[in-house]
């Protein structure tokens, strides 16, 4: 019964994070939400791993370990970018701002 308990708590964390990652205004909170999304999924994965009577299934554990490392690298990358970000949000003036405004382009690249 315990695995189902943790699995449902994982689902709850996942749902909260999914809701907040799209509605949160501030960049930092979006990154926290992204992290918690991963946390939720890993909770479910490990809860699933614990069920077989014969013993713990190590494969989900390995998957979660890989997942955590991937999620840490994604978070670190996001935070590094956030540190270089001027505005507070990703979406300041974002609606029309998909390349159609007139600011000088980053066209200098190769």
């Amino acid at each position, binding site marked *: 019964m315990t695995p189902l308990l943790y699995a449902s708590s994982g689902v709850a964390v996942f749902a909260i994070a999914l809701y907040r990652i799209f509605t949160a205004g*501030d960049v930092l909170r979006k990154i926290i939400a992204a992290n918690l999304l991963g*946390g939720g999924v890993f909770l479910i994965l490990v809860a699933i791993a614990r069920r077989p009577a014969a013993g713990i299934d190590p494969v989900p554990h390995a998957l979660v370990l890989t997942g955590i490392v*991937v999620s840490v690298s994604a978070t670190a990358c996001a935070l590094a970018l956030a540190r270089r970000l001027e505005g*507070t949000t990703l979406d300041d003036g974002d609606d029309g701002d998909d390349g159609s405004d007139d600011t000088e382009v980053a066209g200098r690249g190769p």
Partner: protein
Amino acid sequence: MTALDVLLAGALPVLAWRALATDDLHEAVVFFIALGLVAALAWARLDAPDIALVEAAVGAGVTGSLFVTTLRARGLRPPASPAPRRARIALAVLTIASALGIGAALAALPAEPPGLGELVRASLPETGVQHTVTAVLLNVRGYDTLLEMAVLVAAVLAVLARAPSPSARPAARPAAPDDDPARPLIAVLARLLVPGIILVAGYLLWRGAFAPGGAFQAAAVLAGGGILAILAGRRAPDPHARAVRRGLVFGPGAFVLIAAVPLIAGRHVLEYPEGWAKVLIVAVEVALTFSIALTLVLFFPASGEKGT
């Protein structure tokens, strides 16, 4: 199904909601770290010691410190305008519905699924290590770990993508003025803890072969020690120095090499030659520990870097 489980399982969503719903960023980060620690306890309760170790060291530790540093670097910006109300309600309904759907799906999962556990345990002797998780991580699904190492290096390159070149960077030593009374205390803490950390890291690495532990856990602990050392004023590793880049690439490079050797001999990718599995896995683990620790430390911005 003890009271502790109920408490922990209940605490996680509450902490998640508090972390994401407050408008004060400091509070959000603190709740995030708290959630990381509670999650580590949850992993322990779910008999996943490897993950508990990594979660505590990396999930709460390194990521937590990264959040605090980023918060300090960017300072408190005016709270941004959240998404329009109508969209938020629609999204809320959608997420709740999907959460219930997933919950129902989880409930319908069979209690006794044919997991891969028996298969792993059956073929454990061939993997050259006793501990099942390490066997899966570095031998059976070693290919996943190989790509995951690439993810780590790619991430650190992305983090350093626009790091100012050495000449432009302010002095690597932390900007805290020398007369800051906190300095000697952190230095004391560093002097006390860092040797212990290195010892624990080595111990974790060594026991990875037959008990929970291994490259990631050791590297995470080592990285914690590294960050503590940086806070205590030691020079942060300069990402543009050739030696640091070599150290960064040494672990994954060794792993790719070991993966490529069987190809030359006409076998499949990452197929350890007979009997060599244990030696190669230990070699890979040692190399990876060093590189992952260095990567995690490089994620941590040198305190001088004020969000350049």
